[in-house]
């Protein structure tokens, strides 16, 4: 009995000490949700850096209403329940009024609903699900919707290859399936045929059977998207199975950077000639800052969205001359015309439902181990 009483006491002490520190100082706090562990952990460092860079920059420029900005980063573990823990902790314990970041739509959606119901502003960073638009007026998005991305990639692939038989390969999660749906709709609208439509489970090490299936019906063009780990394995295996010969069957990818950022460094030869969309370039300013801080190139473009989100929140708060989320919300609609962002082509104007309407995607190709404009 004594032992467990002691343990409980220690745990509660930890909690109380945590509370004590968390509720200190006179700062403007922004909650940053980052998938530090779990399936998307590979990008965590970049995503956090995006947030931290913006924080430093805002503070160097005088902060918000004279207060320094503090971005409190919490781990979502890429799972909904701990994501909820993180958001609750930020809102209830750290008393943040504004949240940003997020990665998987599946993790961020319940948080968005929570924010809406509590009157907390949530400027969603990388997630792209159209469902965010329906949540309510406290939710904004920094990335372009799948709807736009789907059309963009189909336009690119159909126009560029001039072929009509498509094989699709998308990951089996909210992001992948939404993109797949938009892609299929757009392909049908363009009169193209989908011969095979492969969905794959994340975090496996062998995708040969899926690739075999993808090519079983002899598609003429491939459209597919991955995360870094799966992109690397799939590219390697496709190459080794003779499926990655872009002069025979061209490959298009709606998410070049997140799919191939690792692969392009490790196995550039395999990916030579793969085309796709890049939500970049992140402004030179951002890339340089990132390089200066981390001493390397960013892996993912999504981090720039986190950066933009923090800057825009700070600008809006200053513009509204208030830290009230509702006022910041209204101000966001007013400042979006003025802000040249670092992500998705720089245009950060919101349209109905608080989503990005004008983001541009650059058509890119992999050449000599680099993603370059096509």
């Amino acid at each position, binding site marked *: 009995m004594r032992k467990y009483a002691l343990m409980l006491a220690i745990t509660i002490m930890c909690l109380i000490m945590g509370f004590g520190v968390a509720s200190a100082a006179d700062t403007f706090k922004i909650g940053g949700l980052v998938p530090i*562990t779990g399936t998307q*952990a*590979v990008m*965590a460092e970049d995503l956090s850096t995006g947030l931290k860079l913006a924080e430093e920059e805002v503070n160097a420029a005088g902060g918000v209403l004279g207060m320094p900005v503090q971005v409190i980063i919490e781990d979502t573990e890429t799972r909904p329940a701990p994501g909820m823990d993180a958001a609750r902790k930020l809102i209830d314990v750290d008393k943040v009024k504004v949240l940003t970041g997020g990665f998987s739509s599946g993790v961020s959606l319940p948080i968005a609903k929570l924010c809406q119901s509590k009157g907390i502003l949530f400027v969603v960073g990388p997630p792209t699900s159209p469902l965010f638009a329906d949540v309510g007026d406290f939710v904004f998005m920094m990335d372009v919707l799948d709807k736009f991305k789907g059309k963009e990639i189909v336009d690119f692939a159909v126009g560029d290859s001039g072929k009509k038989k498509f094989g699709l390969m998308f990951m*089996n999660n909210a992001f992948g399936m939404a993109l797949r749906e938009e892609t299929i709709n757009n392909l049908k609208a363009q009169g193209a045929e989908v011969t095979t439509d*492969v*969905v*794959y*489970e994340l*975090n*496996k*090490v*062998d995708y*040969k*059977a*899926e690739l*075999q*299936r993808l090519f*079983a019906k002899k598609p003429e063009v491939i459209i597919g998207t991955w995360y*870094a*780990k799966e992109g*690397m*394995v799939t590219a*390697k*295996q496709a*190459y*080794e*199975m*003779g499926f990655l010969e872009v002069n025979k069957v061209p490959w298009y990818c709606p998410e070049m950077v997140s799919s191939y950022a*690792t692969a392009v460094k*490790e*196995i550039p*030869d*395999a990916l030579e000639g793969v085309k796709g969309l890049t939500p970049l370039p992140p402004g030179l300013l951002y890339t340089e800052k990132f390089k200066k801080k981390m001493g390397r190139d960013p892996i993912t473009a999504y981090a720039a969205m986190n950066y933009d989100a923090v800057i825009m929140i700070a600008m809006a708060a200053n513009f509204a001359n208030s830290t009230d989320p509702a006022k910041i919300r209204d101000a966001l609609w007013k400042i979006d015309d003025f802000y040249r962002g670092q992500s998705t082509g720089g245009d950060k104007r919101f349209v109905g439902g608080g989503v990005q309407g004008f983001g541009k995607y650059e058509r890119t190709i992999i050449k000599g181990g680099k993603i370059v404009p096509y």
Partner: protein
Amino acid sequence: MDIAQILINTLVRAAELSLLAIGLTMVFDILKFANFAHTDYAVLGALFAYVFNRILGLNLFLAIILAAFVTGWVGILIDQAIFKRLRKIGAKPVTLMITSMGTAIALRNLMRLIWTSHTKTYAIPLQKPLEILGARITPLQIGIIVVGLLSMIAFHLLLHRTTFGKALRAISDNSDLANACAIDSEKMIKRMWFLASAYGVIGGSMIAMEHLLYPRLGFDIIIPVFCATILGGIGNPYGAMLGALTLAFAENLILALDLAPLINLGGLFNVGSIQISTGYKPAISFMILIIVLLFKPTGILRKK
């Protein structure tokens, strides 16, 4: 359906899986529990090999051998620290199994603490595929199949030609009697852990070479390895190889199968091609596992 390619993919995957399955089955055979941490040992070894290869610049082959050696000792160390104590207090196999689950979680996250979650690769160039009978295979894959095969033969010889192997079989048959034959079973168990972990490392490094390497890899491969082991009959090393082959073949074949002819019954119905959704691929090994357990609980090859 491209049978030749399916066969080659099957062989490569089976070679990797069976190296891992052998270690698992050996531990089960001697200590009678399913070691959930087994693939994590393998990944730990693969990460050691990465350190030797990429950071110390050692030849990859040497790096893997060295890593297998180091990890073998880690396996012994963990056994001495954890499993031996449990054996001493006469814990049930189920307790050992749950403990190994705890060990797996601790080890996996410790690796993440040390090496971060980022993916890693060895210093080997991208492989150009060769064409054989219309199927593609890379030299590395040929190497994997050969190493797999050689390791299996070595394992067979070890079990049947060396005193240590015979002693292992004796302990597996009847450990009390083995003790009465002056066989120091604790010493043999130590060596067994060394061997199981080392074999795991070879399998793990081959997966790392052929696919990717990251600390969570152990968790992502444990189910197929378990499946192969049980499929062949736990405690039987040849069963483990057969199980690995069967599983690898099923995974590759089932996704390629077109069920339409089965349902159309020679023109009775007219359905287009019906294929199992690739989203269910991870379920294949589970389903096979459950079906085998239901109808032949001892696996394909009955033990002894």
